[in-house]
């Protein structure tokens, strides 16, 4: 009940307005700033990278292809260079049609992201950091990696091998929808 509450004065009204204005200033500064800080979370659209003619990759061989990743800032310089291991597995029958079959692996080891090297002599990918090893089809062979190499999404367009530009793959954020 308002028997003992004094009637509102100009000062108390002014104080309330000040609090409201202060709160508004804080909120309308914070929201855009937080939006800016967490803007990195938005996913980029898929972009395609041309890796050259599919026929240029000899069957049964694994080649390292490096390219300028379109997922980049204009000032990334040499850090935009990205590598993928491309293996031509020959032809495969899909829906009765013979099509070229490739495996394209991200260069990042699935353990902690170091770049893996392909050794054609033994047919193995090896990681220098902790000795992770993968077979030629990307399956985990030995060492600490928890899974096989990350596959990139690829397609053949007018005889050229194209891949979806790869972001940095991690265990819970691979390059394919099916977590392949």
């Amino acid at each position: 009940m308002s028997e003992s509450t004094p009637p509102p004065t100009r000062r108390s009204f002014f104080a309330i307005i000040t609090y409201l204005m202060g709160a508004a200033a804080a909120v309308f500064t914070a929201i855009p700033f937080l939006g800016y800080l967490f803007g990195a979370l938005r996913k980029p659209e898929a972009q395609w990278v041309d890796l050259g003619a599919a026929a240029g990759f000899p069957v049964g061989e694994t080649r390292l292809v490096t390219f300028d990743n379109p997922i980049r800032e204009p000032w990334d310089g040499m850090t935009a260079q990205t590598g993928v291991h491309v293996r031509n597995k020959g032809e495969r029958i899909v829906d009765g049609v013979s099509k070229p079959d490739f495996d394209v692996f991200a260069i990042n080891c699935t353990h902690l992201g170091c770049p893996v090297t392909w050794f054609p002599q033994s047919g193995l990918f090896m990681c220098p950091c902790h000795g992770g090893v993968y077979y030629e089809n990307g399956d985990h062979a030995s060492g600490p990696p928890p899974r096989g190499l990350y596959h990139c999404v690829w397609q053949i367009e007018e005889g050229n091998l194209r891949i979806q530009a790869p972001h940095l793959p991690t265990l819970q954020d691979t390059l394919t929808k099916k977590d392949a």
Partner: protein
Amino acid sequence: MWKALLLWFDSRLRFTETVMPMVKHPIPAGAAGPMGWWYVFGSASMTLLILQIVTGIGLALVYVPSADMAYESLEYLNYQAPLGWFLRSLHYWSGSAMTLMVAIHMTQVFLHGSYKYPRELTWMVGVVLFLLTLGMMFSGQVLRWDTDAYWGVGVGASMAGRVPGVGPQVVHLLLGGPVIGGDTLSRFFALHVFVIPALLLGALAVHLWLVLKCGISAPPAPGQVVDPKTYHAEYEKELEKGEPFLGPAMMKDAFFSALTVLVVLFLAAYVGPKGPSAPPDPSLAGANPRPDWPFLWLFGLLSLSPPSMETFIILVFPVVLILALFAVPLVSRRGERAPSRRPVAVLAVIVIWTILSVLSYEGYTSPWSPIMDAWSKDPVPTNIIKGSSPRELQGALVFQNKNCRNCHALHGEGVTPGERGGTRGPDLTNVGLRLTRNQLIDQVSNGTPGGGNMPAYGKQVRPAEMAVLADFLSNLRPPGTDPAIAAGDPPKN
């Protein structure tokens, strides 16, 4: 005339009447005497922080925090800017010295029980300062933006990606986007130059405030027990017999700080700047990133852990450690302060420093990393090859060509440690003594039983190659010794 000028400023700033009482505040007599030398590490840390800020500003006048030019600007500093190499060197050595000094300061405070009542909050703020210092070392390495920094950030991101649920979001926040690039460098630049230094200076101000308000602790004496009920009265009595800080105590601080700076200057001039190592070109395979020295122990710990425990150790263990550090003054608030009466504390310090040293050494030597060019760089030692049959020679060729040397070493006459091969797997110099020919074929074909650190080479080696390889391997034993025999086989006569 100078006095009048100073007086003009002082009468307006009121500097003398505000600051001088703080500087002249009484400290326990013991802290002003020879025991006072134990107290110098905190102020030395602060001196090095000031040196870091000064050298950091110097570097910021030239360093370009852009992914395409950072490396070039560092090369410019190293080779073209006058004394740029020295500024870079000083910044690295002073930063390293500060990290070490903070750790020593923390150890000294812990051993002397100075974190006990009423200085628990001072300790906790100190832990914050320690963590922020480590944050500066880590972000500083990223700014070097060489191949170690680039892949090191990748390793950090891969670890962050394991956080359950929000892993990918944490990765994006860390990298400033979906890839390691310019956004990542800018993010770490803002952290290293603006955010963490601001937090450091703020926390330092609170830390110094607390030191002044609680008073510096007296040197511990066996039998002098901390009892919150009586502590303040006892401390006041100590101060009655005390001496002003401005005097021998402050002189010890100043002396040690000056000595520290001189040592750092010498190291900076003599050893020179750190890196940058290879340029951050991600298409160069074979990169083997290394963290800077304060993190080698964690690198070693993680690399030596079984893979099944990795995610737990990466994500949970550091949190547990940090909470334990904060909890120290809550768990041990009162009681004896002298190290001679606190065997658990002394033992803890010895054990922790030993563990850190051993793990750091392991991280430094990193025997778990295969040597990626050993298969073509390190020939099979001549004394092993001498007198081999043609099949054994073919086997040696197969051994080298299948890249086995990357993980397996071979000792020999005249072979230096750097030419032996990788240490990822066991040394095979005398494997013929340990495994029979059939066991060798089994091991090579199927890898580690049950899955482990050796891959199965069954499909990578043709049958003829496997046969001669087995001949070579079972001949790897000292001359005149018999090959290994399996338990059920009849002994050779």
